[in-house]
């Protein structure tokens, strides 16, 4: 579970995420204290490095508190069941007073509205790596997890993911200032109209345009090319890791559950034994405990998988920025190419040499020379065109440079965030493994004691 980032997180009881098994009573010799430190606890809980300084978070606390089911008519007038999520916001100062916190403002949103918000941001800030949404459908499932969108575990993990999404936005230096985002958090009705009114759909690049750009850019910025390849590699490798992890989880589930059979079998056997009966019976109970423990263990591991998934989805956003760069670069190159062509045309007209084949030129040669007047008017038209072209080129250049600068700024910020988050994720994974080992030691030590009594 994730909490709203704020100074005081302790009163939010539902946000207890115990990553480490800090509650185990049996002491086993340890190399170091594996209980998580308070700092790690704060950082771990979201895996988001939430920057306190950003404007929006200073002002308000945000959380996605609940999920609920609704039914309604959809666009084709059919009944459908969907889930809505409760967004709570609260001015930040209210909590630090120490008294009972002010009741939060709330509104309900469904997943498709989150999607709309994100699409709007993608179009409006093409140089920003926009945080991804949690997956629409459960992927990389291992057998126990349901792939059903209405399954309560899935809904819960999605609630957490949506909260994480909002917090990421709220902590972003650029995105947090967006007014549509603010409205998303505060205006339940009328938000959809507000978004559509911005006319962002018109700004969206056609797929065709961006596709052709990718094939024909001559001089993309090398850093972007490298970044694109990196994000492709990252996407591949995280997908693979998630897939295998799911298989490992599946197998581990099998190992633990099969031990549960010992419980049943020992119980039956103990019925016919005098001296061995008690020991067998109690050992069997520990086997049942062992078998049951895997459910919680794997549920926790899902959080780790979710952290990795977030960055898997981030790679798509990164690729999006790279594509935008390619598109702008392409347009820049086209503009430059266009300009140089016009200049050459002018030169030819002025000097009379034909270097570039053109139908007009050929026909004029075949059907007689132009008059001096005609030629001069053509040159004048060209000069006009050239001037416009130069203006356009300057603009495009400026646009490109601005894009590169802004994008690279965000990319650096993203890199830092990624490194910190993933490192924390790996650490929390280690803590989970440690907890699992400690539980295993406890169960089998107990079982051994019981066998001793046989």
């Amino acid at each position, binding site marked *: 579970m994730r909490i709203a980032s704020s100074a005081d997180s302790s009163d939010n009881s539902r946000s207890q995420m115990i990553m480490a098994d800090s509650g185990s009573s049996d002491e086993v010799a340890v190399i170091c204290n594996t209980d998580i430190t308070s700092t790690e606890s704060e950082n771990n809980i979201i895996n988001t490095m939430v920057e306190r300084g950003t404007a929006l978070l200073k002002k308000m606390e945000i959380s996605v508190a609940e999920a609920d089911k609704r039914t309604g008519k959809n666009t084709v007038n059919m009944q459908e069941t969907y889930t809505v999520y409760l967004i709570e916001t609260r001015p930040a100062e209210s909590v630090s007073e120490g008294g009972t916190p002010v009741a939060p403002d709330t509104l309900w949103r469904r997943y498709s509205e989150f999607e709309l918000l994100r699409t709007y941001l993608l179009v409006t800030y093409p140089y920003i790596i926009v945080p991804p949404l949690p997956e629409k459908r459960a992927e990389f499932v291992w057998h126990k997890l349901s792939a059903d969108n209405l399954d309560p575990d899935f809904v819960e993990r999605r609630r957490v993911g949506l909260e994480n999404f909002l917090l990421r936005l709220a902590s972003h230096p650029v995105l947090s200032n967006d007014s549509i985002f603010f409205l998303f958090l505060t205006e339940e009705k009328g938000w959809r109209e507000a978004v559509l009114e911005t006319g962002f759909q018109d700004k969206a690049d056609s797929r065709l345009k961006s596709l052709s750009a990718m094939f024909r850019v001559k001089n993309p910025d090398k850093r972007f090319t490298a970044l694109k390849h990196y994000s492709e590699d990252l996407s591949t490798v995280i997908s693979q890791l998630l897939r295998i992890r799911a298989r490992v989880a599946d197998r581990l589930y099998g190992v633990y559950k099969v031990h549960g059979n010992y419980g049943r079998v020992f119980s039956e056997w103990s019925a016919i034994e005098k001296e061995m009966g008690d020991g067998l019976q109690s050992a069997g109970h520990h086997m049942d405990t062992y078998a049951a423990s895997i459910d919680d263990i794997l549920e926790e591991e899902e959080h780790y998988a979710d952290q990795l998934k977030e960055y898997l989805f981030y790679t798509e956003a990164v690729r999006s920025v790279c594509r935008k760069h390619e598109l702008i670069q392409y347009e820049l190159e086209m503009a430059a190419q266009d300009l140089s062509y016009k200049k050459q045309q002018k030169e030819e007209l002025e000097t009379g040499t034909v270097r570039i084949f053109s139908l007009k030129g050929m026909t004029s040669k075949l059907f007689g020379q132009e008059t001096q007047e005609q030629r001069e008017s053509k040159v004048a038209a060209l000069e006009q065109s050239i001037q416009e072209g130069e203006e356009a080129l300057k603009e495009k250049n400026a646009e490109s440079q601005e894009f590169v600068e802004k994008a690279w700024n965000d990319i650096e910020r993203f890199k830092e965030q990624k490194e910190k988050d993933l490192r924390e994720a790996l650490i929390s994974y280690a803590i989970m493994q440690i907890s699992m080992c400690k539980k295993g030691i406890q169960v089998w030590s107990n079982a*051994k004691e019981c066998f001793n009594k046989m």
Partner: protein
Amino acid sequence: MSGAKVPADISGHMLDLDEEEDLEVFSKNTSLAEGNPMPNSPDSMVNQFRLDEENEEEQQGAINKDIFVTVDNPESHISAIETFITYRVVTRTTRSEFDSSEYEVRRRYQDFLWLKSRLEENYPTLIVHPLPEKFVMKSMVERFNDDFIETRRKALHRFLNRITEHPILSCSHHFKVFLTDEELAPHRKLGPGFLSRMSETMRAMANSVRGLRSKLEEFAIMQEYVDDFSNNMCSVDKVTHRITKEHREYMDELKQYGPTYFQWAESEELLAEPLKGVGSCVEKCSKETEEQIQYLSEVLVPTLHEYVLCADTLKAVMRRRDNIQAEFEAKNEALASKTTDKEMLQEEVDDLADRVEQANNALRGDWSRWRTSMRADLKSAFISTAAKNVDYYEKCLAVWESFLLSQRGESMEQRNGADAS
């Protein structure tokens, strides 16, 4: 036995012979039990060991082991007709009925089978530890596969050692022959031939059809226990096999899991180090898993398997006891309905009655003995399995903790560095 006409009732005859020989053995062997007088008859000999469990355990502890047997050094023999494996059987003993103190012979599986069947014939109601199976049907394991041979060797070793620990069986003439004679083949030819074995089987079948008149309650209870024990052992064995299978599949996936972290590390800079750290933790844990599986299949699985076979042995022992009783009852009935020639039949009936009592006493004695060693074996196997599992988790714990320590150390540095600047 040589050349004499084969008497109708083989088993009784055999018992007589061995009784004499065993008597000899006992008169020479002084270390059997502290302070007890020399046994004179099989009855008292057996009664000696019909003690309740506590004393049994003391008794067994008090017996100084004076015979040690090892089975090792498998070798394959290739002849024109067949290929087979022989094992070296080394005996070291201070028992006086052995001419020498050390013997070394080579035996093949068939020889062990021979020994077992002789022991079962001579001591029908004693519990002989099972031999490993002839073929392993479950896995299509070649007879000459190294693992198979090693598993079999260990089981054969245990088989012989159980016999050396048994106060009666270890004194068997056939056991001595098995351990000492260079060539077992001539002995194999002697003994009940095919025909006599057939007749015995048929008699047993006839008896089982007739059914027992009355069974002592203690044996009825024993039978019930044996049936339940057999079911339980099979279940435990099955569950254990399933666990081993699941472990193996888990380990296979783990082996693929670790490398993905290393692969990822290749495209990272700062993240490479912790990624490699996690990857190597996973690799180390998968090695530990491998060891754990190995241990399981070397300790728990064979033990459980042997006790599954033991259950079958017990069933056979119960059957043989029942047959002996059935024979007596049949003869007794015949006697009751006869009007003339009663004396000879009466003698036979009396003999059979003795046989029944001997058989019952032998079983009673061995029963508690068997229960004790069963309990010890299974308890020890489960304890060491649990201990190994604890060890496994402790090792994995250490692996992850040292990774965590390395990461925290680094982050401390980073924090200090950030503070400093």
